[in-house]
């Protein structure tokens, strides 16, 4: 298969060589916000009256090559910014470097929101979605604005429960999504055991989700990619904001210096006063329970062709819970990332970005029960070098190639009663190389063939991943798209959807093949009316050689590495519909997902009378047949804004208990063992889920220091008691089955000052 993709790539390269020999001019440069100097991703550039144009890449850089000498009007546009235009005259062989500052539109009620075609194009690439960072802050959220919970509103993305910010995308578990912060992998992006994601909304510039069929420039996960970019920092003036919330407060500050900019954002939970109050009247309150995170970035603009940046993130959660006089539970976990980025412009046609990344994940749970300590030390260290080259020989081709190589070290020690019961230290080298071309074969056809090669040292695995996307534009308002890709994954996450504080990553190795899968996506992106969008996508994906910790192993000590896993397969398919209103006083979207997700593991979900032979596919718990999300924003006046989100979803699947019995005679216990018989796993459905959240925000002034925003939010307005799972009370005969519910109605308030 990959030969086809290589052939297409070769044709693309050949056809680009033919035109690049002409005597032509070009324009290139960065596009930035005039007020902050922040680079703008996916801004749209074009020469009026021609079909020549380009969009800025993830570093805000654009190139329009192969322009015939002459005089043109260059126009630039971007969502929320005034259009820019300028007359330019280009001579033969001239390479014009033109950095552009776009001026933000002032916010006026009747103003039509300006959106660039290029940005829409990027959003409308197959399987791709972009989350507006302002929307993340505006959406009603449980105590704290959250990136992942905003992403969960998109079609194809599901939440495991109200308590989980984990992303279940197109039938994939959270470990099947690559999470990148400034191009650096983040391994456990959660606070409060998964309740929140780690990303501070004040620090974020851009959130891009590749739900499936993602291009060759990304790899390493079976399902999807969530790429988050932090702000560079204001290059014009010092600015900042401070927000006080019920659960956490945050502050950010940014500003320029002689050769660039910097940014620092901190966030910390503020539960201590509440816990101290509760401790006066309630038992079993943690003595310590907090999280914090810090994001920072410094940019150094060495010259017009070289830019450097250093970004870091550090986040940590700490819990100490002495639940009796002789028992304590402590947990300390978090992430740290560091990335050093170098952007270099070789020429107007050749652009490179090189980044050195370091990522650390640590997790140290610690129990001390009646003088018996249990301690786990789990660390991941991932150091890598990543480089991408972008070459634009002409307006028809955009070549990208690059590599990503690194060392991944995993360490896990379990210590029970001062003795090591499990110890593992695995160090792997990994490398990948890709090449892809975005080939505009005609005004109506765009082909994006690509191929990615992967190497993983433990087990000496080499994997090839062909990728292909095709787009056909029968009219200006309709884009028909298709994509195929092969994906491999060398790591797996040991987690529990109810509690992500103990997450442990394990890797493929000799005897543990990496998981792989194919994705097929078909879609149509349409503009039915001005300022409206209607998109539909169909997807099918397979998952093979899935490896995950065998859930039936109470003790893995002494087992060969491959024996701690169970190996399975799965597939998922579905349809997503996305209807949005993009501009005006009222904006919002309506998303619908029809989804099917299946897994199979040997011996699991077998018929009771023939367990060895009859493992059957079963739906995962997060398989939800129908899922509807509606999000609306209404500007009530120049000061007040109303935001609401509503979610309806088919109840999650669960296993209905059919029969029971009791075992009485186990020799080492006086406890009677209650046992169930069940039929098919997850063949029943919990009651349907629905929830309405609303938010009012009022803009104002905080004395003369700056603008302010007061947010009043109500989560689960009508207090629907959605069921999480059923609990069984064996003290009752017959057994009492109780529903364990999710969040009730919750008010929330926050106050933000921007200065």
């Amino acid at each position, binding site marked *: 298969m990959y030969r086809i993709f290589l052939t297409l790539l070769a044709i693309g390269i050949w056809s680009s060589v033919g035109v690049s020999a002409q005597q032509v001019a070009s324009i290139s440069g960065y596009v930035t916000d005039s007020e902050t100097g922040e680079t703008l991703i996916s801004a749209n550039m074009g020469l009026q009256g021609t079909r020549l144009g380009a969009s800025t890449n993830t570093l805000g850089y654009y190139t329009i090559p192969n322009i015939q000498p002459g005089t043109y009007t260059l126009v630039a546009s971007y969502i929320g910014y005034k259009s820019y235009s300028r007359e330019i005259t280009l001579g033969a062989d001239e390479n014009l470097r033109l950095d552009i500052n776009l001026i933000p539109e002032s916010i006026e009620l009747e103003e039509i929101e300006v959106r660039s075609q290029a940005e829409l194009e990027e959003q409308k690439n197959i399987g791709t979605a972009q989350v507006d960072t302002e929307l993340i802050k505006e959406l009603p959220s449980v105590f704290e604005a959250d990136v992942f919970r905003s992403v969960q509103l998109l079609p194809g993305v599901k939440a495991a429960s109200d308590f989980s910010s984990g992303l279940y995308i197109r039938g994939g578990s959270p470990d099947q999504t690559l999470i990148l912060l400034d191009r650096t992998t983040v391994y456990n992006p959660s606070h409060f055991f998964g309740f929140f994601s780690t990303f501070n909304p004040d620090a974020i510039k851009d959130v891009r989700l590749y739900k499936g069929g993602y291009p060759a420039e990304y790899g390493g996960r079976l399902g999807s990619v969530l790429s988050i970019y932090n702000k560079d920092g204001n290059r014009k003036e010092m600015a900042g904001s401070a927000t006080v919330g019920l659960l956490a407060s945050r502050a950010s500050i940014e500003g320029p210096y002689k050769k660039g900019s910097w940014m620092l954002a901190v966030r910390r939970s503020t539960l201590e006063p509440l816990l101290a109050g509760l401790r006066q009247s309630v038992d079993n309150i943690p003595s310590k329970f907090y999280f914090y995170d810090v994001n920072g970035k410094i940019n150094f603009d060495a010259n017009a062709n070289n830019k450097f940046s250093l970004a870091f993130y550090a986040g940590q959660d700490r819990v100490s819970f002495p639940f*009796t*006089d*002789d*028992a304590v539970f402590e947990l300390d976990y978090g992430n740290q990332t560091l990335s050093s980025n170098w952007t270099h412009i070789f020429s107007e046609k050749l652009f490179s970005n090189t980044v050195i990344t370091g990522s650390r994940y640590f997790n140290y749970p610690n129990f001390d029960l*009646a*003088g*018996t300590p249990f301690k786990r030390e789990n660390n991941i260290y991932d150091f890598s070098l990543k480089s991408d080259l972008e070459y634009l020989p002409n307006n028809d081709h955009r070549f990208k190639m690059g590599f990503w190589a690194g060392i991944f070290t995993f360490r896990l020690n379990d210590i*029970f009663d001062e003795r090591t019961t499990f110890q593992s230290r695995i160090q792997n080298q990994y490398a990948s190389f890709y090449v892809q071309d975005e080939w505009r074969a005609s005004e109506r056809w765009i082909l994006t063939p690509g191929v990615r090669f992967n190497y993983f040292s433990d087990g000496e695995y080499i994997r090839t991943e062909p990728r292909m996307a095709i787009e056909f534009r029968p009219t200006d308002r309709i884009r028909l798209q298709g994509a195929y890709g092969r994906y491999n994954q060398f790591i797996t996450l*040991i*987690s*529990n*959807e*109810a509690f992500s504080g103990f997450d442990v990553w394990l890797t493929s190795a000799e005897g543990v093949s990496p998981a792989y899968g194919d994705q097929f996506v078909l879609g149509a992106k349409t503009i039915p009316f001005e300022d409206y969008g209607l998109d*539909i996508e169909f997807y099918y994906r397979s998952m093979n050689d899935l490896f995950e*910790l065998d*859930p*039936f192993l*109470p*003790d893995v*000590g*002494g*087992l060969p590495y491959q024996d701690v896993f169970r190996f399975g397969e799965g597939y998922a398919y579905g*349809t997503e*519909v996305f209807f949005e209103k993009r501009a005006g006083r009222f904006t919002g979207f309506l998303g619908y997902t*029809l989804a099917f997700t299946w897994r199979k593991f040997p011996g699991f979900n077998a018929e*009771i009378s023939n*367990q060895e032979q009859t493992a059957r596919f*079963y739906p995962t*718990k997060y398989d939800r*047949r*129908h899922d509807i999300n509606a999000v609306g924003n209404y500007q009530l006046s120049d000061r007040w804004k109303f935001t609401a989100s509503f979610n309806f979803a088919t109840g*999650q699947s*669960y*296993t209905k*208990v*059919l*029969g*029971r*019995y*009791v*075992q*009485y*005679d186990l*020799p*080492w*216990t*006086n*406890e009677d*063992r209650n046992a*169930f*018989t*069940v*039929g*098919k*796993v997850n*063949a029943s459905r919990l009651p349907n889920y629905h929830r309405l959240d609303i938010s009012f925000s009022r803009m104002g002034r905080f004395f003369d220091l700056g603008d302010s925003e007061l947010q009043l939010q109500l989560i689960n307005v009508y207090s629907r008691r959605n069921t999480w*799972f*059923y609990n069984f009370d064996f003290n009752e*005969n*017959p057994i009492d089955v109780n529903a364990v519910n999710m969040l009730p109605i919750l008010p929330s308030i926050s106050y933000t000052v921007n200065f």
Partner: protein
Amino acid sequence: MKHFLFILLAFVLLVSACDPYAQDEYEEYYVVESYLVANALLPEVRLSTTVPADAFYDFEEAAVNDANIEIQLLESGAESSVEQSWSYRYDAPGIYVPEVDHNVIPGRTYKLDITLPATSEKITSTTTVPEAFQIIGAVPDSIFYQATDQLEFTLSASSYPGRQNIYVFNAVSLRPFSANLTPFYSELIAESDEPEQDLEELANNSSGIINESGFEFNPDGSATVQYPWIGIAFFEDNLIVANTIDDNVYDFIRSQETQLGGSTLSPGEIQNIIYNIEGGIGVFGALASDTVQVYIKRPGS
């Protein structure tokens, strides 16, 4: 546009209306329970049926009382012929006892053979008894609770075919009164909704499954075990029991314990227990064990 939406709606209705994965109905199964202990007399056998999950459960009502039961000693492994057999007789509802005594032989394979005359149904299962072992060397008669030097004992070398030994330890209190509870368990009982039942269960406090690779091995193949303080629920006299278990018990326990959560499975994702029985469910298992007695002294006493 209208056509498009209509087709989409029709597609959604068509796809979601088909449910090839329907919920099963309740089915009744025969349930077996019996554990052979190396060098001990043949155990009793319990035979009953399952009941619907929402029904009142009473063992005597679920008991099967008209079965013909034999335990057979096989010559050399599960597929070999019968060397000797022992018939069982009805003793109480659902409970059968051997007609003659026999000491279970360590390392040998036994078969449970049940026939139900009324229906001609057959239930069979085999188990290989773990090799016997002993707690060797000196074990202190008494020890202070949470002393720096923990209770330590040595297990003689043992083996089980095809895998490492898997142990379960338990502490049986000879004076299981609430006044004798160690502080941690005393607080748990104080907060319990069912203190009497919990006290009875704590009187036989077990460790859960432990692989022997976690032990410290001596040059002669014996293993030294430091007994964790969390395993001691009562002061004063305790029997400390070390058990090594067969595959049938191992499969039963490890899968039964995941039915109520606690593993990596999602809440509510319940799987049937792993059974090694033909014609029914339950467990026909085997273990080897040895016991020492220790007096746990209160700190400062």
